[in-house]
């Protein structure tokens, strides 16, 4: 107890010299930069002996550490007697400092999460106002409260916190759940937008702002070209956090989403290089062309280096999970540890951490998912979603908090022109680049898509942190103000209006009459057909490099990185196996294959009904509207190439999987119906024959169909089904005497499995 008190006391003392007790935000002060030098009295200090002592000490100016320590020790020793007495009598005591740091961190996270619950309670709210706006709003309120209470600027978010703690979970989540197929199909376009587009934006904004600075009435002459370019480099970067948050609400097609999203992730490399380049140029007395070339070379180093670091860590992670068979409980930990290490390593070498973590996640995903157990897999996914959600919320709240304050210089012309130029240059960049892209691709990027890409270029917390990393020079506050306004503008104005604008654009194209029922059905039919043909022709396999990679993968990587060759079965395959077992048991119990179809057979009976129907019924517009609604609701969607990325739910819980399961069940039923009909037919024909093998011969196409419908390439599962179904098909048409045998055989074969 004594030792503890001393240690605690010592810690409080040290920290008191660098920071202050200030309201309830001691944590905030400790981690965040101070923006002014005042040291007010704490508003809330719990009434303990130690706090009282702290308050007393606060007024004094400690001359040196030793004097203070001596003084403290003596006074503490003197008080100890008293202290001991009071402690003996107190049953409850409040000791806030002990838990202050974790307590406040948790409180902030709790606030963020409660805010999130609050938004989703009102169903209409997230569709009108995107979540990010609401969170910034909450942050603004909090900032206002803190400002009002303390009468000084609230703490500004420390860039280290953002880059080291808040950003990695979000990027990891994005990289892990990134649908790799559309990503790689569009990688050329994405890279073009990310690299060339960002450079275009940076120089465009930088130069035009420099032009504005030349205008004398704005009093901005002292902002040099280099400063403007530096500012341009940090404001041009599209922010993945903000983009993700807003694109959740609007439903655009996969390709578009992956374009904007991929671009926002990959432009980190360019941003990092340009920012560091211009910053070092600012500090250098003279700039030579060699330096410029060094900058260009640096870009390649940063991008490719980050990618390689990521891949290395991904492979190591995959390799590690190969051996975790006996300690399944900590498997998820490896995923997170390796990803975070990868990010930190890349940052250590000044490479692009975001590119690294994405490469790591995408590289290790396949092998890790094959190696770890199903439960660990779910855990990994859930934790990732959770952490990224928390990070995301915290970022927006802190953004709001940091906006209020006195560290801004509000030079309105500069700020307005910044906003305008951001919009203009982005639009121009997208237009020009899309023009080039469309010449090489069949699937063009339509003008609606272009609008969304241009308008969806949101800036967010990344710009904010970069601005605070700037070296202190006399115009820094101008830049912070401009950055703040741009971010708030993009988040609020663009975030809120993008949904209505998208709908407006859609409406404009839908002026044609609604398709008739027949057309609707037929269009969907053709879509399914095309999707099927695409899958058969191996549309994905059309790239030479992808084929090569697959070859490399199957021959080398899988052998090293995968534990065994058992592929984990998806839920659909498990479902199918369960269905098969159930059916086999039912058949065994019923003793025959005359399984009544669960929905009425469509092959008969309705033929005569048509002639009697009156056409007036069908022309009824109410009936028609009803039909349209039914169709719109119930027609199966075309298979998506991969499940869509969603912030709030895991892939696999969403509609497409349910749809797939339904389709499988339906096909399964119709299969058994066919089998039962053909088999009863054949058994009627051949009931005289005792030879079971001829029955097998006749129904042989059916077992092959039974064998079908595996979803993964699980050869074992396939063979198992084949054996089971074939045996069932063969045995059942036998005479009743065979059924006893069937019963015994099936049940003993099946009970161990179940």
């Amino acid at each position, binding site marked *: 107890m004594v030792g503890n008190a001393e240690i605690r006391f010592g810690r409080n003392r040290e920290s008191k010299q660098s920071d202050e007790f200030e309201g309830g935000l001691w944590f905030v002060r400790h981690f965040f930069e101070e923006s002014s030098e005042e040291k007010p009295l704490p508003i809330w200090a719990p009434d303990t002996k130690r706090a009282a002592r702290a308050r007393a000490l606060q007024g004094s100016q400690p001359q040196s550490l030793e004097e203070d320590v001596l003084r403290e020790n003596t006074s503490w020793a003197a008080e100890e007697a008293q202290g001991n007495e009071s402690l003996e009598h107190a049953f409850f005591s409040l000791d806030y400092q002990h838990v202050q740091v974790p307590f406040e961190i948790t409180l902030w996270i709790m606030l963020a999460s409660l805010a999130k619950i609050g938004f989703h309670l009102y169903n209409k709210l997230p569709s009108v106002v995107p979540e990010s706006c609401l969170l910034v709003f909450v942050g603004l309120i909090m900032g206002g409260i803190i400002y009002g209470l303390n009468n000084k600027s609230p703490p500004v978010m420390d860039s280290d916190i953002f880059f080291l703690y808040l950003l990695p979970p979000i990027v990891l989540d994005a990289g892990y759940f990134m649908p790799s197929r559309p990503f790689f199909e569009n990688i050329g376009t994405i890279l073009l937008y990310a690299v060339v587009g960002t450079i275009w934006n940076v120089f465009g904004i930088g130069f035009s702002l420099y032009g504005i600075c030349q205008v004398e009435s704005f009093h901005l002459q002292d902002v040099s070209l280099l400063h403007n370019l530096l500012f341009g480099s940090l404001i041009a970067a599209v922010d993945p956090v903000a983009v993700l948050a807003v694109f959740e609400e609007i439903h655009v097609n996969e390709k578009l989403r992956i374009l904007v999203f991929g671009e926002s992730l990959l432009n980190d490399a360019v941003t990092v290089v340009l920012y560091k380049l211009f910053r070092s140029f600012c500090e250098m007395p003279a700039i030579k062309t060699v330096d410029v070339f060094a900058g260009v070379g640096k870009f390649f180093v940063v991008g490719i280096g980050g990618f390689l670091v990521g891949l290395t860590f991904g492979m190591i992670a995959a390799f590690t999970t190969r051996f975790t068979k006996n300690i399944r409980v900590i498997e998820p930990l490896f995923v997170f540890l390796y990803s975070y290490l990868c990010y930190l390593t890349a940052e250590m070498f000044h490479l692009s951490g975001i590119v690294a973590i994405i490469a790591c996640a995408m590289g290790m995903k396949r092998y890790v998912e094959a190696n770890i157990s199903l439960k660990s897999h779910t855990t990994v996914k859930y934790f990732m979603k959770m952490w990224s959600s928390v990070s995301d919320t915290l970022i927006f709240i802190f953004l709001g908090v940091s906006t209020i304050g006195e560290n801004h210089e509000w030079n309105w012309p500069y700020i307005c022109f910044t906003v305008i130029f951001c919009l203009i240059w982005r639009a121009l960049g997208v237009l020009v680049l899309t023009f080039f892209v469309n010449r090489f691709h069949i699937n063009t990027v339509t003008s609606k898509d272009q609008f969304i890409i241009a308008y969806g270029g949101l800036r967010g917390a990344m710009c904010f942190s970069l601005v605070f990393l700037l070296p202190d020079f006399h115009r820094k506050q101008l830049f912070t103000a401009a950055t703040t306004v741009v971010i708030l503008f993009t988040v609020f104005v663009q975030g809120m209006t993008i949904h209505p604008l998208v709908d407006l654009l859609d409406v404009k194209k839908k002026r044609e009459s609604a398709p008739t*029922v*027949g*057309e609707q*059905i*037929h269009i*969907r*039919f*053709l879509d*399914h*057909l*095309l*999707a*099927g*043909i695409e*899958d*058969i*022709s*191996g549309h994905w*396999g*059309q790239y030479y490099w992808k*084929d090569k990679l697959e*070859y490399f993968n199957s021959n080398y990587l899988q052998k090293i990185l995968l534990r065994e060759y058992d592929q984990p079965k998806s839920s659909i395959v498990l479902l199918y196996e369960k269905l098969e077992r159930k059916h086999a048991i039912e058949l065994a119990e019923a003793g025959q294959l005359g399984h009544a179809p669960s*929905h009425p057979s*469509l*092959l008969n009976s*309705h*033929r005569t*009904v*048509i*002639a009697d129907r009156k056409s007036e019924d*069908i*022309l009824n517009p109410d*009936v*028609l509207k009803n*039909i349209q609604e*039914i*169709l719109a*609701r*119930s*027609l*199966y969607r075309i*298979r998506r190439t991969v499940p869509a990325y969603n912030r709030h739910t895991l892939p696999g819980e969403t509609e497409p999987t349910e*749809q*797939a399961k339904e*389709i*499988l*069940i*339906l*096909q399964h039923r119709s299969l058994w119906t066919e089998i039962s009909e053909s088999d009863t037919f054949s058994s009627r024909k051949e009931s005289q024959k005792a030879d079971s093998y001829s029955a097998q011969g006749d129904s042989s*196409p059916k077992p*092959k*169909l039974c*064998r*079908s*419908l*595996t*979803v*993964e*390439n699980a050869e074992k599962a*396939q063979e198992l089904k084949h054996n089971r179904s074939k045996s069932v098909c063969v045995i059942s048409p036998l005479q009743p005497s065979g059924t006893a045998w069937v019963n015994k055989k099936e049940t003993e074969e099946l009970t161990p499995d179940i």
Partner: protein
Amino acid sequence: MGSRASTLLRDEEIEEIKKETGFSHSQITRLYSRFTSLDKGENGTLSREDFQRIPELAINPLGDRIINAFFPEGEDQVNFRGFMRTLAHFRPIEDNEKSKDQNGPEPLNSRSNKLHFAFRLYDLDKDDKISRDELLQVLRMMVGVNISDEQLGSIADRTIQEADQDGDSAISFAEFVKLRC
């Protein structure tokens, strides 16, 4: 990999396929490597199980029908020529083909042939008419279990009524073409 596949496909075969289907040389070789990767039994033909092994096809509502379309009447195996012939229907129509060779046989990927292919997927009994039952079957495959039979019946009736012009309560190929317009 790629080279191994093309040595099994002789050049004159590639030429024949090219003439028949209109695919380019590189497309044919790529499709051949796809064919061989699907052909697990390595006997130069594909059976129905080989198709059913494609995961996405299993959860396509029309999966079985599409697979059946590849197999000629009554057969269980399809060779590479047949595979290509079916796939040729889906080649995009290129502008430069329209002016060529008006006298020759219609190319496989003409609009009319594409529509014929789709029509054959509906019309199981091959009587050149889509009857109400066939339509019901397709609808049932496409909408699943959420719709009752009566509703489905009325949808089918509505469809036939919209498209049917000669009053036989079935959709013939000509009416089918007009439906898609």
